[in-house]
């Protein structure tokens, strides 16, 4: 009899967002969780068929967690086999025939590459690349023959019926001594396995002894694989139009020489073999080939496909909704809930949040009004104004009123009355000369900034919750989105399990707690493992603190400032490398298009922002807004990397603005992001 302490099977719950890293997800799950990015906002001008069958190599570029591995693995042979399993009545061979491609996934494992290079370079500095080429060709051939053997095993083909002629052709076409005596495909397979074993043994033993690397044959890339493929297409008619894809993942882990080697392979590809390369941003990889004079040219040698390029926010939300739907469907306890929106809610209720922060208090009004000299020293006047503009049920509105008062050049009491009337006209939907401006200020420009400001004045943290917020924080990155959802569900399971299972929804407090925890731990974790981690950590903390200062400005002059600019060309090579690493790990993100560097400057340049997922660390806005961008000199960037010494940029911005602007900058928003999106 089960006792009270024994957990029942029915009580167990697997977090549907637990599987985060495509590297460790099994093929069957890759397939079941697959949400096609093709022909969606994620990969706009690329369809699945073209990606599979295009002969020109394709470079798939995207940030960490953007889905490169999932995409490459989706086209790999193990997942193809799963697809065949799912299509009842269709044989593996017919699935390969209909898809017209087989992909072989190779991950550029950092530790493997580092050790391989060290050992073989130590043996022969000039030849280690050819040893790697040999290893790669053997691995590729092994996988090609494994497919043949699989097809034979499931009786889609009969190797015996063509084996003799197949082997004779191979022997005739390749000049590899150990193969000349082969009589079966298994013999060739054994040769490959023996050679791979020899490499392993050599790697494990040679460095300690003085043995020289002497493989029985040194294969060039495609020297055997191309011949195998050509003959497969002759003897297995169904495969005669098949493209063999070498799927190379984490290209940026390769040494420069190996990148050049693969670039050469891209430039000189074969008829039936093509490459698909997954890599992060361009700054950390080379375009050179091994002959040092030829460089890769986009569209000529390869197609560059950038994940999430130009993806609209609504498309991101749609994609995330689909990702979440697939995962929630798997969970028996959540499959009937109203999807991710039901679980997390959609948008934040800023009015409610501000009411909870202020709880009828007027400290925020006092502090904002004190920003104007003529009011700060006159307590009686301040009280008079507060009595006019106050609206305890709507702290955002009363704060806007206060801002109107301190910005007006008119008499403060008249300004207060004017603000109040505009507010009432807005709420009562009546006419007033300033009601249009009021609507814009209330519904668009200031809602978010005022919420952050009020939380700062009352020493509270701005709450981050709701699907809309999470989509903003994830900024198009599926792994970040899945990770945040996973953390939120874990938090709910711990703090509000009963409520969670009863309502199939999660409170905003639980969401906020989980998001804050995720934000900090993701930041610290990435900084702890990446190259230049300490410097990148300092830089981001300093830049984030500058933005936090802008968000606490009681005059709310530069609302939601969260972008910065600097001239990368002015940086030293070392600093540029650090910036490139930050970009490749998506610690900082460059806006896709060059834009006007700041509201008051009529010059275009690159605009950067901190990964949106880190916004909760600094209590800053995650929305993309235009207007003022904080400018940093190369000296400031250098200083910020070295230590935690936040630059005082708000006062500098004041000086800059007062010398250039002729109006308050609040009208300079570029309206990219709609309020409450």
């Amino acid at each position, binding site marked *: 009899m089960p006792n009270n302490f024994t957990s029942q099977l029915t009580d167990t719950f697997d977090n549907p967002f*637990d599987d*985060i890293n495509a*590297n*460790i997800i*099994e093929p069957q799950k890759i397939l079941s969780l697959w949400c096609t990015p093709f022909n969606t906002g994620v990969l706009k001008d690329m369809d699945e068929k073209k990606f599979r069958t295009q002969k020109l190599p394709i470079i798939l570029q995207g940030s960490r967690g953007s889905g490169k591995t999932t995409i490459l693995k989706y086209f790999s042979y193990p997942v193809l086999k799963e697809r065949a399993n799912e299509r009842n009545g269709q044989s593996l061979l017919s699935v390969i025939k209909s898809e017209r491609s087989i992909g072989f996934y190779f*991950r550029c*494992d*950092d*530790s*493997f590459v*580092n*050790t*391989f290079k*060290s*050992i073989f370079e*130590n043996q022969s500095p000039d030849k280690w690349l050819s040893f790697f080429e040999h*290893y790669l060709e053997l*691995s590729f051939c*092994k996988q090609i023959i494994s497919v043949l053997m699989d097809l034979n095993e499931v009786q889609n083909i009969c190797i015996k019926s063509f084996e003799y002629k197949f082997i004779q052709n191979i022997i005739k076409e390749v000049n590899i001594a150990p193969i000349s005596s082969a009589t079966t495909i298994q013999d060739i397979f054994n040769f490959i396995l023996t050679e*791979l*074993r020899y*490499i*392993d043994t050599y*790697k*494990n*033993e040679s*460095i*300690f*002894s*003085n043995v020289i690397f002497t493989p029985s044959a040194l294969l060039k890339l495609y020297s055997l694989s191309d011949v195998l493929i050509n003959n497969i297409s002759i003897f297995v008619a169904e495969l005669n139009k098949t493209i063999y894809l070498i799927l190379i993942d984490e290209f940026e882990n390769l040494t420069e020489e190996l990148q050049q080697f693969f670039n050469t392979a891209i430039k000189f590809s074969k008829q039936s073999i093509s490459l698909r390369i997954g890599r992060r941003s361009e700054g950390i990889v080379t375009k050179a080939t091994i002959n040092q004079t030829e460089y890769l040219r986009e569209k000529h040698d390869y197609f560059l496909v950038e994940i999430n390029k130009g993806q609209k926010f609504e498309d991101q939300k749609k994609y995330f909704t689909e990702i979440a739907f697939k995962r929630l469907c798997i969970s028996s306890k959540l499959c009937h809930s109203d999807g991710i929106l039901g679980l997390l809610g959609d948008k934040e209720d800023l009015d409610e949040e501000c009411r909870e922060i202020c709880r009828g208090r007027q400290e925020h009004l006092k502090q904002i009004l004190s920003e104007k000299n003529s009011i700060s020293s006159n307590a009686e006047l301040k009280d008079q104004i507060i009595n006019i503009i106050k609206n305890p049920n709507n702290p955002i509105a009363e704060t806007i009123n206060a801002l109107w008062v301190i910005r007006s050049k008119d008499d403060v009491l008249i300004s207060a009355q004017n603000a109040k009337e505009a507010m009432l006209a807005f709420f009562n939907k009546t006419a007033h000369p300033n009601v249009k401006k009021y609507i814009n200020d209330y519904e668009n420009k200031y809602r978010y900034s005022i919420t952050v400001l009020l939380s700062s004045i009352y020493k509270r943290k701005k709450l981050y919750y709701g699907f809309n917020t999470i989509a903003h924080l994830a900024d198009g990155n599926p792994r970040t989105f899945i*990770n945040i959802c*996973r953390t939120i569900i*874990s938090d709910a399971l711990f703090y509000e399990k009963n409520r969670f299972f009863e309502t199939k929804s999660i409170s905003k407090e639980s969401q906020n707690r989980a998001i804050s925890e995720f934000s900090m*731990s993701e930041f610290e*974790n990435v900084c*702890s*493992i*990446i*190259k*230049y*981690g300490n410097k990148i950590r300092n830089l981001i903390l300093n830049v984030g603190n500058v933005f936090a200062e802008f968000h606490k400005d009681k005059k709310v002059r530069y609302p939601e400032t969260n972008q910065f600019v600097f001239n990368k060309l002015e940086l030293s090579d070392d600093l540029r490398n650090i910036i490139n690493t930050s970009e490749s790990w998506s610690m900082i993100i460059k806006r896709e298009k060059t834009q006007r560097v700041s509201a008051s400057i009529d010059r275009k340049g690159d605009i950067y922002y901190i990964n949106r997922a880190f916004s909760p660390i600094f209590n800053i806005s995650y929305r993309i807004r235009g207007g003022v961008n904080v400018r940093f000199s190369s000296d400031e960037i250098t200083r910020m990397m070295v230590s935690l010494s936040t630059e005082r940029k708000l006062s500098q911005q004041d000086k800059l603005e007062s010398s250039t602007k002729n109006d308050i900058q609040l009208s300079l928003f570029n309206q990219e992001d709609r309020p409450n999106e």
Partner: protein
Amino acid sequence: MNSIIYHMNNIEQCCDLTATDTFIFSLTTEKRSTKSFEYLLNNGLSIKNIIVIKYTEDKIPDSILEYFKHYNVTIIRGDTLPIKFIMQIKKLNIDIWGSKILIDISCIKIPEIFSIIKYFKVIIPGVDLQVLYSIPYDYNFSKEPFTSYRSFIGDLSMYELFGFSGVSHETNNDLYLFMGFEGALALKVTEDTAYKELNLINNLPSFYQKYKDISIVNNYQLMQNQKSCMLYTPADNPFETYNLLENSIGSDTYACIAPLSTKPVALGVCLFALSHEKVRVVYPISQKYNASNTVDTYKTYVYNISLQ
């Protein structure tokens, strides 16, 4: 059930430590680096050759130089690329080693421990090793005693430890990660290594009770984020680590191991990987390390190892 019969003793109870051909140890600013060396010499140990592994340019203390006067001393740089370290070992005359070797691994870094033992396995396969390890009285925590331990400075690079690459075209195996005090090391391993199942191993018993909790605090994120199985091994017993791996992995299974825990545990991993060629050992190596990570010495163990 134990797979091997083993011998481990407190140094004070070891009566067979009277003579050795070669004594290998690392000279650092940590007190325990010379603890067993001085103890054994003061108790009449006869040594022919001394190999000192140095990780810094620091001057050798006069008290140690005094000892060195009487022996054939070779200094090897440890603060170099792993491959260069092995090249230095290989350059030594093979006769230097003799048939009885003592290694004090207290302050030798884990990658170098693996390299040295693998070298002996390949070059002097029948050699008997006596491995010494001084358990620290405590570790250096720069701030609060839970998360502030930091042994490395600078950037980490992942390596397969030389001689322990396993079978390279079988990469998607179970990962056995022995947790240490530094979450960053474990995160680096899981970020860069593809694996099927993650097995996290903590120390039980640990040197002191709180140490196993410190490991959990520092690896909490990993334990939360990844579906993993939790296993335990004693912090001071390489043979039990061997047995744990033998029971969990078996004798003919591909696996990847990251020994981020104590050195006795790493020694156990090393012995297991030496006799299981399908096992791959990975380790994040830093450009630079802190010179001193421990305070004083609690006690010293001697492990008798046969590399046959």
